[in-house]
């Protein structure tokens, strides 16, 4: 039997959030956290959480698992608990709770949209694809794979303090994805859009983002590249 403690809050019925305890029969297997949640939901259908692909590519089930943000579907219980003690599930920190493990991601998405997350190329469209050297394409590796799960931004103290003004690690990773893309013609504009005290420069290099990213991406490094390019542009 696995002891599981789940953050519960239903705005329709609860005046304040609380932790609720569940005993889950895992059949002696080392399940993924998402599997444990679905067993808990069989016991108590009122538990709310998001899930979709169940294989770590859609980014739905980011949550705080025993103190660390991660995706429930690719986090084995043994990894979360260190093989002992109970499993503790809370919503991603720093974002408003809609219900239980479901957070309101509006602020997160707003910051993503702010960086103009789309390729802009003002040169005439060729009849086939735009050519790109494999070496130039390689520059996008480690950037385009972001799944927008918000594990990074919601673990970032700078984002907690200024969610309206600081783009946050996820948005900045995507900003750099388009800056680094040799097919994009808006690089200068993208850089100058970030050149204020908050959007980029609120990053203090704490690196919580790198620590939690379930895809092994490195937003801090991308932020470093943007800073360098801004400095070069300024000189």
């Amino acid at each position, binding site marked *: 039997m696995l002891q599981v403690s789940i953050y519960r809050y*239903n*705005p*329709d*019925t609860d005046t304040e959030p609380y932790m609720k305890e569940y005993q889950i029969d895992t059949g002696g297997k080392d399940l993924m956290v998402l599997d444990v949640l679905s067993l808990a*939901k*069989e016991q108590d*259908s*009122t538990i*709310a*959480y*998001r*899930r*979709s*692909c*169940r*294989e*770590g*590519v*859609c*980014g*739905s089930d980011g949550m705080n698992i025993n103190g660390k943000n991660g995706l429930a579907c*690719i986090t084995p219980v043994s990894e979360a608990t260190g093989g002992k003690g109970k499993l503790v599930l809370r919503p991603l920190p720093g974002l408003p709770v*809609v*219900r*239980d493990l*479901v957070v309101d*991601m509006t602020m997160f*998405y707003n910051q993503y*949209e702010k960086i*103009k*997350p*789309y*390729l802009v*190329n003002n040169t005439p*469209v060729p*009849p*086939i*694809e*735009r*050519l*790109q*050297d*494999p070496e130039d*394409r390689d520059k*996008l590796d480690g950037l*385009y*794979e972001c*799944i*927008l799960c918000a594990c990074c931004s919601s673990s970032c103290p700078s984002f907690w303090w200024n969610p309206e003004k600081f783009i946050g690690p996820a948005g900045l990773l995507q900003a750099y994805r*388009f800056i680094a*893309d040799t*097919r*994009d013609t808006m690089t200068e504009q993208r850089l100058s859009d970030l050149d204020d005290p908050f959007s980029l420069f609120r990053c203090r290099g704490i690196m919580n983002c790198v620590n939690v990213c379930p895809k092994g991406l490195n937003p801090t490094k991308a932020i470093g590249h943007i800073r360098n390019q801004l400095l070069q542009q300024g000189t």
Partner: protein
Amino acid sequence: MANMRTLTFDAVIVGGGGAGMRAALQLAQSGQNTALISKVFPTRSHTVSAQGGITCAIASADPNDDWRWHMYDTVKGSDYIGDQDAIEYMCSVGPQAVFELEHMGLPFSRTEAGRIYQRPFGGQSKNFGEGGQAARTCAAADRTGHALLHTLYQQNVRCNTNFYNEWYAVDLVTNQDNAVTGVIAISMETGESVYFKAKATVFATGGSGRIYASTTNALINTGDGVGMALRAGFPVQDIEMWQFHPTGIAGAGVLVTEGCRGEGGYLVNKDGERFMERYAPNAKDLAGRDVVARSMMQEILDGRGCGPEGDHVFLKLDHLGEEVLHKRLPGICELAITFAGTDPVKEPIPVVPTCHYMMGGIPTNVHGQALTQGADGNDKVIDGLYAVGEVACVSVHGANRLGGNSLLDLVVFGRAAGLFIEQALKEGIEQRESSESDLERSYNRLNRLENSKDGEDVSKLRKALQTSMQNNFGVFRKGDLMQAGVKELEELRQRIANTHLEDKSAAFNTARIEALELDNLLEVAEATAIAAEGRQESRGAHSRYDFPDRDDENWLAHSIYDPTTKKLGKRQVNFSPKQVDTFQPKVRTY
């Protein structure tokens, strides 16, 4: 339902995967008043899980490649019940649609020449089957679906598409003329239900792999569009045709791309034998998916499966080397470590055929217009309803889809429906009206759940349904088992009509959504069961012990399941492409 709000649009698209977002983009770019309703934030849609690529004759890997060769492969892959006019359209328009994706920013992998990288996939040939294996699948490493879906979302952000994210479509609204006037949808965050009224309602709701116990599909793939169409009395086509992907990770069901075999991986049995050489001497591991899946099951049934239970085979990749695996198949390496506990650089992956794709769906023409049959048996356009992507059966996949053709289907027909609706709106389509009682009917299911006082548990019934489908309608099928399956589903229908929603709260009530989804799973499962039992032959993915041969005399036809009578009829396959000669049915070998 009192005081239900009405929101009015030119077009409402239901579903935010590749097909829905491609259609939305077309309409948003042309300034139409469009809403896209999605039960998940769009980048969580199942398109994100597509791995290997998008098949299309862009002539990068082979400068002489020709869309007609791709068309030949697709017709043959379909076991000749794919519509040749639709396949011709997809294969010939494909390059344009793929180049557009690249222009939008999709980060395709590249060749040394800087062009889009293409890899070999199953069922591909050069020169109409005469020129050996082709490499026609355009790839962004093994994350092509993710790259495609995010690119389409990004372009929709650019064009200010109206997204209704985490809204769940409950039912179509139809009037006395059987015209579709919109959908009822519920906001998951607040519980509010709204009538989305539109001149064009576009279903892009994806597949329904969750009718099976073991599937590569996302948990959200519950056949909502098929369910809504059947409840509205509209037919579905070829719904018995379910693709079992050869390589789902044994136990977990997670997909391992065919691109693994495209890059040179192969399957072995417990003796270490590369058994596909026996079943498909030419194409071997790159035969059609139906052929490979059956061969694997045969190995397992003959006692040559791997593992202590002998219930899977191995996919061997280690001979490709670490560099190729990490460059071309990085996602697979991650998934294999996470879900199989094996590193493909060193060990083979345990795999088993796993439900993957619904070839059938709502019959449409190449413009995405949904079709029904008139009293005379001829096709009749359903006023106001369109379908694109996996929920649609246009039909480009027939009895068996080729790998990489799904992503192409999404963008080509999402685009085509968008273009057609854009034109129709410009010419002026009339908004059909529905009465209060029409709306009331569409609100029935919600009403029943809100008033349910007791009844059975949703998750238990869902499991029973999935088990029944898995046992009775798998890779190999048999008349008596299927008849038993149809009976089981009849009983399940009685029980599912009485599910109990214990939690009636409004905010993000996922129990309510799961109860509504179960109704759709049931509709898809029952249609599948009746159609599978009714098609008395073996063709493509539909393989029967009691009718082991293809029967072109009686079944070179689409099946049409009519939900109002629960009877199976037939519809003609199109054999009239416009630019090439008809590909005549022949014996299908690889």
